């Protein structure tokens, strides 16, 4: 497929109807919280847009992000991502291997210098000169820095690329860091989640192609349209929280009645993502709907925030032995203070 072809031409060649395309634009505009009138504008812009070259780098990751995107039910909005872009390099998906694969990346970098999008999933190990993950003999760190130089923007897909994720979890033996820890001079969008919601990636790409800019981001660099509200605030079980109805175990009456999972450790109140609204598997459900609390996977360091099954309002307060020692110490100080007081009283009494 010629890269100079517009997206509209390409979609027409692929037999995608105007009606389907308009539905896609309307849905995407809605998901991005854009005004309703933006859908036709988005359609016009996308139809004329050149498919951007995309280099997709996979570093310290489990391939879950790519699996999330490619194994979603088809046809879906997220499936359109491959129609929106020219995926010139992707370790997992490309047919080329070895020298040819790296040549494809270098070619795309040269031909589309300053224009290509760089998508990264996985964290980057920097300990011991980055030897813990290399591709074609190049460390992840060097490959990222090299590939980022000519990128128009970077999309860090998944919590590993966005915040370091599970590889960064304590004790972080590989010295894993996020993309934003290494790249400071390029616009970066963090599409966090373990894995991220596929339609969020599509939405960011559609926004980039429509407006030529990245969407509004929150303080963690995530698109506000998808990460603006907490899971808890959009959860269909929220009314049960307000009524004080909680499941105590995963198989009690409360669980069967679909009551709030706060007591079972749900991290929905401090987790920002679109799971509760966009949902997963073609809008089928999301983890809470399936009966399990939110793990908070789209937040930084979610793996190191204590047990997934301890309620949010509990803390890391130490041990009973520590508290007992504090009681003993306090009692000893109190006894000492009382003893000193008694001696002083005795001394005063003797003086009299």
């Amino acid at each position: 497929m010629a890269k100079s072809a517009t997206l509209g031409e390409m979609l027409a060649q692929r037999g995608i109807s105007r009606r389907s395309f308009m539905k896609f634009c309307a849905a995407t505009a809605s998901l991005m919280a854009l005004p309703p009138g933006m859908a036709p504008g988005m359609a016009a812009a996308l139809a004329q847009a050149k498919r951007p070259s995309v280099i997709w780098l996979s570093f310290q990751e489990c391939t879950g992000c790519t699996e999330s995107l490619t194994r979603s039910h088809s046809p879906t909005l997220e499936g359109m991502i491959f129609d929106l872009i020219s995926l010139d390099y992707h370790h997992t998906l490309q047919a080329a291997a070895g020298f040819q694969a790296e040549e494809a990346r270098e070619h795309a970098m040269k031909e589309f210098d300053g224009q290509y999008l760089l998508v990264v999933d996985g964290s980057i190990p920097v300990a011991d000169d980055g030897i813990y993950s290399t591709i074609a003999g190049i460390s992840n760190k060097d490959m990222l820095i090299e590939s980022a130089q000519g990128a128009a923007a970077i999309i860090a897909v998944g919590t590993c690329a966005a915040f370091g994720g599970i590889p960064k979890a304590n004790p972080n033996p590989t010295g894993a860091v996020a993309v934003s820890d290494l790249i400071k001079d390029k616009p970066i969008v963090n599409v966090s989640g373990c894995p991220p919601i596929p339609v969020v990636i599509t939405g960011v790409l559609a926004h980039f192609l429509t407006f030529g800019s990245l969407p509004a981001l929150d303080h963690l660099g995530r698109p506000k349209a998808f990460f603006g509200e907490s899971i808890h605030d959009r959860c269909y079980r929220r009314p049960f929280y307000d009524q004080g109805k909680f499941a105590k175990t995963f198989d009690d009456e409360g669980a069967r009645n679909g009551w709030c999972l706060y007591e079972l450790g749900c991290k929905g109140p401090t987790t920002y993502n679109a799971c509760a609204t966009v949902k997963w598997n073609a809008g089928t459900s999301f983890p809470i709907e399936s009966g399990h609390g939110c793990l908070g996977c789209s937040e930084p360091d979610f793996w190191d925030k204590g047990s997934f099954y301890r309620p949010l309002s509990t803390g890391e307060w130490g041990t009973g032995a520590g508290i007992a020692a504090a009681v003993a110490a306090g009692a000893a100080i109190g006894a000492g203070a009382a003893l000193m007081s008694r001696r002083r009283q005795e001394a005063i009494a003797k003086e009299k």
Partner: protein
Amino acid sequence: MDLLDFARGPALQWSLYILVIGVAWRLIGVLLLRRKADHSEPRSTATARGALFTIWRRMWPRKEFQARTVYGQTVGYVFHIGLALVVFGFVPHILFIKDLTGLSWPGLPSNVVYLIGVVTLAALILALVRRMTHPVLRLLSNFDDYFSWIVTTLPVLTGLLAVAHLGARYETLLAIHILSVELLFVWFPFGKLMHAILFAFSRGSTGALFARRGAST
């Protein structure tokens, strides 16, 4: 480590240690003080009963002073009962206590607790207004009174702000709420808030003494 991790981790741990050390220190220190010998002949031996009765009796207003104390007592009852309901009735608070002590009980609906929280906050503000405007009370008040009011009111205020998502993101407000509770933990043993524990001992000893002497409490 973000602010919430700090509040739920080291700050919680150290504030609890200070609370426990401070309470044990003051309680043991007071209980082991020398007592004045009472050489009078006891009128009654039911001193324990007298102690318990006085603890109970002095929780309720005296008719003789009702007209002059109705405002202060009403406000006092509202915020004391309100604080108890918010602290011990809100399910996330119960879960915190359960995690610490293993004790738990059924909670109130969250919306009801929010309403009680608002009423409690209003009563606390009215109590401060009275303290600042009443000529005698103002003269009697010192830093301890005002600071104790602040550390009592902050958890109520920050809790309501967290619920309403007002002023900052929820996780930041939650962290501030927890930190405000930890400030209360740290201050509790060393200021007038310790009355929450000492009231029973002071009233009890007074009641026991009065009972021994055959006086009405």
